[in-house]
């Protein structure tokens, strides 16, 4: 068998980018309603050149489907997939633990609490429907509480952080469950159900633009930290001895991951599995260095989530299946297959 690790990284990145491009184009055609190729092409043309050149005639209906429904969904898959993938790569490096994922630092339970509280108690923010804002803020607050409690004499020992993170998350989850079963407004509430399962639907361009820039900045911060994150995989003493300011790296990385992942979770809900698995696929293809794993996780996360989202639309006609169900349902067998095929001894000791 060819060892994929030995292929030039540039070729692999080009291949992944090409695959993503094909998928983006393919996804433009996927949806419960059939929209003609002409109308899709014309809409894209009008969006980009319509201001300067004569626009093509497109029926309003097809324009709305392409511009308001499909494009935000595709871009959301890219933004959410990238943020979760990068978050996973960073968190696994900090904790030196292959079964950690970005939600473990408290993001998911905090965001869930914010979401159910805002729906359950009808909290609005400046008159806007505020689930997204509350999910985002609560996620950040819980992460900082966990970080604060874990801090010991200026250092945050990772095992300590992990344990505090898991226990606070469980604590917050029980609050979420309490609100869910005691609040009459949440009975049979489809919105909260689809939020908890994760969905890329009904994301507005405005939300998407804000989240995109947050993810862009936090991803670049994580990327700039790749050498520090690499050395931390050999243990914190080692990292310090080669000159890394370990505590600063941890702080900066966790803030970046918390911001990026909270932002995407606030618009997509809790899409599971991406942050856990995607970095491993990146490592199997490119080796362990975060120089490759971080950008690869962004690409693979986007590809994976886009595929899952297309499947979620195609799997039952006329029905909406939350993408969060598909990511685990399809992702687990694919990942186990990849692990067997590509691991080449890496995970055996």
């Amino acid at each position: 068998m060819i060892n994929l690790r030995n292929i030039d990284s540039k070729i692999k990145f080009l291949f992944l980018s090409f695959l993503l491009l094909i998928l983006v184009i393919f996804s433009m055609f996927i949806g419960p309603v059939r929209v003609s190729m002409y109308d899709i092409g014309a809409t894209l043309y009008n969006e980009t050149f319509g201001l300067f050149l004569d626009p093509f005639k497109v029926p309003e209906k097809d324009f709305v489907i392409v511009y308001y429904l499909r494009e935000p969904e595709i871009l959301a898959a890219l933004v959410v997939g990238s943020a979760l993938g990068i978050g996973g790569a960073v968190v696994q490096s900090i904790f030196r633990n292959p079964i950690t994922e970005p939600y473990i630092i408290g993001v998911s339970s905090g965001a869930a609490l914010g979401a159910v509280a805002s729906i359950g108690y009808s909290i609005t923010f400046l008159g806007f429907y505020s689930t997204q804002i509350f999910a985002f803020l609560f996620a950040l607050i819980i992460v900082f509480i966990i970080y604060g409690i874990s801090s010991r004499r200026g250092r945050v020992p990772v095992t300590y952080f992990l344990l505090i993170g898991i226990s606070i998350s469980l604590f917050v989850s029980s609050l979420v469950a309490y609100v869910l079963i005691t609040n009459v407004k949440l009975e049979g509430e489809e919105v909260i159900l689809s939020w908890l399962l994760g969905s890329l639907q009904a994301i507005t361009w405005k939300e998407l633009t804000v989240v995109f820039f947050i993810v862009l900045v936090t991803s670049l911060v994580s990327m700039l930290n790749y050498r520090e994150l690499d050395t931390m995989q050999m243990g914190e003493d080692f990292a310090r001895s080669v000159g890394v300011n370990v505590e600063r790296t941890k702080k900066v990385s966790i803030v970046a991951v918390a911001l990026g992942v909270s932002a995407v979770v606030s618009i997509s809900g809790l899409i599971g599995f991406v942050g856990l698995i995607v970095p491993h696929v990146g490592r199997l293809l490119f080796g362990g260095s975060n120089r490759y794993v971080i950008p690869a996780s962004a690409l693979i996360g986007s590809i994976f989530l886009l595929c899952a989202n297309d499947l979620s639309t195609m799997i039952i006609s006329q029905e909406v299946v939350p993408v969060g169900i598909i990511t685990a349902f399809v992702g687990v067998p694919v990942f186990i297959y990849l692990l067997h095929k590509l691991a080449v001894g890496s995970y055996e000791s």
Partner: protein
Amino acid sequence: MKVEINNLEIRLGSFRSSVNHLSMENGVWGIAGPNGSGKTSLVKVIDGLIEPVSGNVNIDGKNVQEMNYRERAKIISYLPQEIANPFNFRVSDVVKLSGYSGDGNEGRVADALEMVGIPDLKDREFSTLSGGEKRLVMLAGTIYQNSSLIIMDEPETFLDIKHKHILKKVVRKLSRNGKMILVVLHDIESIVSMTDSTVLLSQGQVVDSGTTGSVINEKNLETVFGIRFIKDSSSQTARFIEYDDEVDT
């Protein structure tokens, strides 16, 4: 190169250690003593990995505690006792990590691996190596880091006879190239054969320090380890054999 320790006090949980004054200069220095005597704590303080409660460590007159991690990494490298398993790293990736604070150039990874006798492991998956091989890779890392002081914490752990031999050769060679080396050891024989000078620790205190020949004697060893040693007169080099009262010899 000169390492000077003044009024140092270390506290780690219930463990306490204090060193009033210790001065080490050039050559290969052994740090010896029984388990729990504070060997690892002492070298971690020297490398700035542990903050002491009070006192200071000066290297060539500069206070280690006041340097930042990068400055420290340029003059001190550290071979840890425990070796982590990173995700999917190759041997060359692991060695390169040690060049974090340097300006690192690719050619030296091969040189470092060559020096510790494992040039053919360059592209192997790090996690598939044996314990001894991993330690040699880490040793190559400390060489790659190219600092003037190298600290090795129990470098003989997991090494077989051949690898131990390589280690001794590497230490000697590094010393000849002008590096100062602090090596934590618990095997008396290795101390005698590898080091020029020795610091002998017991219960967090310095019992004796100086040339290895003067420090490693029957009296000091009995004080520190609580059992009697006798010098093996048949050996060319100094060699101590532990002596058991209850068996007639």
